């Protein structure tokens, strides 16, 4: 009796899987583009992954969860745009589309996804990511600007160099690992900001939050000057800083600190209203 019931359950699962696979549809889009092309993917629900392609080809695979969603595509000049088009009766579940895109490494890429996740890697064209709750992972980007706007999704950037990095996250935590450039700016309301790296060799780093904690872990040989202020939170410094030659404000014990390390190549500003700030030596 138990065996029959078990077989029945398995059969139901198999049938459900078959129906799901049968309902889903895989589409492939291919385009040939020139240098510095622009690729935009607008996906309401589902993941988007972007990797470099070998040549001047844009190849995008889309797996549509059901017939409640379709993909509109267009190519005008070197601008490619794909968009999930929700149809009557669409829900976050049945309107899910999985995109996997291969684009020329120098292409500018713009991705919008409500719940993601979104992943981009090994590119050197400008990158713009937007999402609501989407997890965002970006790594190995160089010589390009990275802009991320998010509500609550966690954001992780790894090995990003030589470009402007501007992140605005309302509630999602932001993790920066080995991120350097002429401008690195992170603004958060309630999300935490974590920086692990050496602050490069000459750039402006601004990490700002309302109530999110800010933590930076720095190697001993880093070269930067830092100003850290929390209006209502605590600040803590474990890094051996030298006093600055000139200061524009008098630090308040437990609320702020200033100092330099090495030749003070980069400028670092850590600022929060009520979060905690911690500067640590790796």
């Amino acid at each position, binding site marked *: 009796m138990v065996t029959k019931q078990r077989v029945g359950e398995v059969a139901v699962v198999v049938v459900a899987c078959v129906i799901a696979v049968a309902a889903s549809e895989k589409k492939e889009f291919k385009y040939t583009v020139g240098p510095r092309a622009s690729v935009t993917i607008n996906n309401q629900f589902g993941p988007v992954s972007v990797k470099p392609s070998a040549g001047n080809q844009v190849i995008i695979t889309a797996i549509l969860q059901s017939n409640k969603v379709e993909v509109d595509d267009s190519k005008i000049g070197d601008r490619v745009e794909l968009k999930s088009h929700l149809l009557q009766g669409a829900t976050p579940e049945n309107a899910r589309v999985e995109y996997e895109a291969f684009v020329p490494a120098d292409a500018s890429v713009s991705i919008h996804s409500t719940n993601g996740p979104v992943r981009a890697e090994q590119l050197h064209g400008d990158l713009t990511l937007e999402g609501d709750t989407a997890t965002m992972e970006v790594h190995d980007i160089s010589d390009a600007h990275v802009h991320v706007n998010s509500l609550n999704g966690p954001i992780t950037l790894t090995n990003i160099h030589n470009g402007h990095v501007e992140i605005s996250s309302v509630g999602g935590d932001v993790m920066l690992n080995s991120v350097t450039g002429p401008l690195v700016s992170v603004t958060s309301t309630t999300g935490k900001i974590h920086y692990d790296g050496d602050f490069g060799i000459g750039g402006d780093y601004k990490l700002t939050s309302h109530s999110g904690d800010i933590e930076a872990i720095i190697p001993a040989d880093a070269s930067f000057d830092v100003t850290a202020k929390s209006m209502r939170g605590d600040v803590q*410094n*474990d890094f051996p800083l030298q006093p600055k030659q000139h*200061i524009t404000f008098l630090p308040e014990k437990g609320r702020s*600190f200033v100092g330099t390390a090495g030749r003070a190549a980069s400028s670092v500003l850590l600022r929060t209203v009520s979060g905690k700030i911690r500067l640590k030596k790796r």
Partner: protein
Amino acid sequence: MTCTDFQDKLPDLIDGEAAGEHAAHLKSCAACSDLVSDLRAIASGAKVLCSADEPSPRVWANIQRALEAEGLVRTPRQAGGVLTPARRHWAPAWLVAVAALVLVGFGVLIYQNRLVQPTQVAKETPATLTIATPPATLADDDLQLLTQLSPAMRDTYETNLKDVNAFIQDAQESLARNPNDEDARHFLMDAYQQKEVVYQLAMDRTQ
């Protein structure tokens, strides 16, 4: 010479002229130069303060104690204290009092400055000083925006709007308390940019 080194000698420099490396620092550092100018302005402004009432002996005693506590003056050898005014010469004594208040104030600032050394770990701030984040509210525009979103998204956006509005309100209050506070101004701009992001994302969802 750093600003901290310079400010260690600040009390000696208010009335007199800076010399040597102090003079060099004063020339090269706008912040310290402004500070000294301000202090001298206060001292000279005190000269025009007209008061018929001589401060009570208790005021002098308090100033004396404060200066001693900060280590800025030594305990007087003679009874009566170094700051005890001669009744016939109230004006110079009044100036001394103003200068003493200035010194006490800067003594406190310098003392605080010394405590924030690079390798030092800040102690916990008393909980009584913590101000709670203002209660989050929604403006009419926010409510209108929310009605245009699908029910599945509404909660997420409502929470984020409330958080951002609390950020804005906090920054506005800080700026109202300290209109010249650059940080408060930057916080306010950052807060509005965060709200702009929320609106921008929401508008994308309503199209």
